């Protein structure tokens, strides 16, 4: 009997120890995140200013800024969103509402699952061969945007599918029973009811895209740009132009990368400041996505 009690105590002790270890393991990552943010803030806060946001990069670290970088990021993300959203949502709708259980659908699904695991730099190589040289789009904002669109496509597709799957079948049956066609059902029910989930997925995808560096470097974004892309509005007819799509560009993470690679301490401070802004953007977008997910889950209680 004593032996048994000893055993039970030993087991319980081990159990309790694990509780602590498990909690610690979980906190390691969070600890790292906090340390990272504090480190960035300590180094970079001094460089944060309006001037920093509105200046171009320069050889002199005190004068360097991220203007071309964040404008570039914004424009590239715009192209990414416009390319990835229709394509991703259409694919999601097809797979959930139209696809039958045949070999074709299987191939499509396997492909999407595979693409989700392809390293981002391989997308860069694809874009280099396909967009830059084969389609002759050059090292431009359009290329950068399309590359990132390919990268986040699996995310958008999977978010769309999950949002659509959450819609109960009874709603579909009610629609069909009233004589609606498949497209009418998709148009008036499936799309409106899944918009929340789709939007969340898009924002998560874009928040990933904003921090991507490797594929953008591969397609030829420059690391030192001291000018902005052509303005979209022109003074003469027809008053707006698409020239900016074909201009060279840079993005925030590349600017940070460039500064980190320099030996001078001052440039590293700049890198920290850029990193802070990048983190702020990422956290903001993720926060928005989480908020939207919560809000939409409350609105439609199936």
């Amino acid at each position, binding site marked *: 009997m004593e032996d048994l009690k000893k055993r039970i105590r030993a*087991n319980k002790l081990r*159990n309790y120890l*694990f*509780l602590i270890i*498990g*909690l610690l*393991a*979980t906190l*390691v*990552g969070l600890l*790292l*995140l906090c340390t*990272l943010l504090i*480190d*960035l803030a300590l*180094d970079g806060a001094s460089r944060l200013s309006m001037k920093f946001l509105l200046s171009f990069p320069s050889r002199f670290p005190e004068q360097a800024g991220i203007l071309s970088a964040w404008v570039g990021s914004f424009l590239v993300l715009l192209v990414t969103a416009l390319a990835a959203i229709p394509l991703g949502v*259409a*694919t999601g709708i*097809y*797979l959930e509402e*139209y696809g039958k259980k045949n070999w074709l659908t299987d*191939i*499509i699904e396997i*492909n*999407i*699952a*595979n693409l989700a*695991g*392809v*390293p981002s*730099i*391989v997308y*860069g*190589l*694809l874009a*280099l*061969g396909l967009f830059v040289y084969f389609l002759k789009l050059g090292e431009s904002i359009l290329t950068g945007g399309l590359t990132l669109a*390919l990268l986040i*496509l699996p995310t958008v*597709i999977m978010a769309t599918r999950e949002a659509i799957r959450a819609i109960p079948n009874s709603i579909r049956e009610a629609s069909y029973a009233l004589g609606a*066609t498949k*497209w009418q059902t998709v148009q008036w029910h499936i799309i409106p009811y899944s918009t929340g989930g789709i939007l969340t997925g898009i924002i998560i995808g874009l928040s990933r895209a904003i*921090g991507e*560096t*490797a594929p953008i*470097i*591969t397609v*030829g974004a420059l690391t030192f740009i001291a000018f902005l892309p052509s303005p979209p509005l022109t003074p003469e007819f027809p008053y707006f132009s698409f020239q900016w799509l074909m201009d060279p560009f840079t993005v925030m*993470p590349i600017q*940070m*990368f460039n500064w*980190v690679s320099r030996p001078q301490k001052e440039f590293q401070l700049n*890198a*920290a400041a850029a*990193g802070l802004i*990048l*983190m702020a953007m*990422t*956290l903001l977008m993720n926060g928005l996505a*989480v908020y939207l997910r919560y809000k939409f889950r409350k609105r439609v209680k199936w």
Partner: protein
Amino acid sequence: MNHTRKRKIKESAIEAALLVCALFSVFITVSIVFILSYESFGFFREVPLRDFFLGTQWTPLFANPKFGILPLITGTLLTTGIAVLVALPLGLLVAVYLSEFAPHRLREIIKPALELLAAVPTVVYGYFALLFLTPILQGFLPELSGFNALSPGIIMGIMIIPYVSSVSEDAMIAVPMHIREGSYAMGATKLQTAFKVVIPSAFSGIAAAFIIGISRAIGETMVVAIAAGGMPNLTANPLEPVQTLTAFIVQVSLGDAPHGTVAYKTIFAAGITLFFMTLGLNILGFWLRKRIRELY
């Protein structure tokens, strides 16, 4: 009925348009394989396979270029190995803690926080590895060089924890409660139940999680490009600088290798090596995850 025919045509057209969009993903994969292969064939026409796979020096941009890919592969494996040593045990521990021990409210807070870890841009992690972690490690290991495999390896490991933990956790949550109850009913503690019953039942899912983690580490670029160095180095010593397949591609892209030259094509040779490494792992992971869905 003309009305019916018009409607049927419209519905079929919409379905066809949606199908074309869906097939785009297949097109992307095909394009990746095609472009990588096409440029690689060009590369291998000039560089014999033996030199490529068995050579121990990678200096494609020198006047007398050498094209042995082993240093890049060892660089990748070394950093990946360190990352995996960090991420897999920690990831599993976190998963066990969250699925078997943690109170529900705590879980709700921790899960999104961990997702945040995966959302941080990798260039920020690279900055952190080079400028924060390496100096700290040098305090303990004075012979640690400024660029090394250890620091980015550790950072990558922590960065990958969420991938490993969330897939493992999904696998463990899927284990039905009544299997756990069988263990508890015999007087086992949570720890014993977790390790002796739940983990073995969730084995395929956990293996899939490990594979995802490894695949992610192999494909990581910026952390190693910034903190591991730009010199290919055939070594197993994590304290030395190394260059990975991914970092090499970045290095060439930043440079001036003109389109069409062998130097340019080297990035595709490195790329196709990378692609097949991750493809193999992804297929394995996909198959394993399919198996868990079938089991439950």
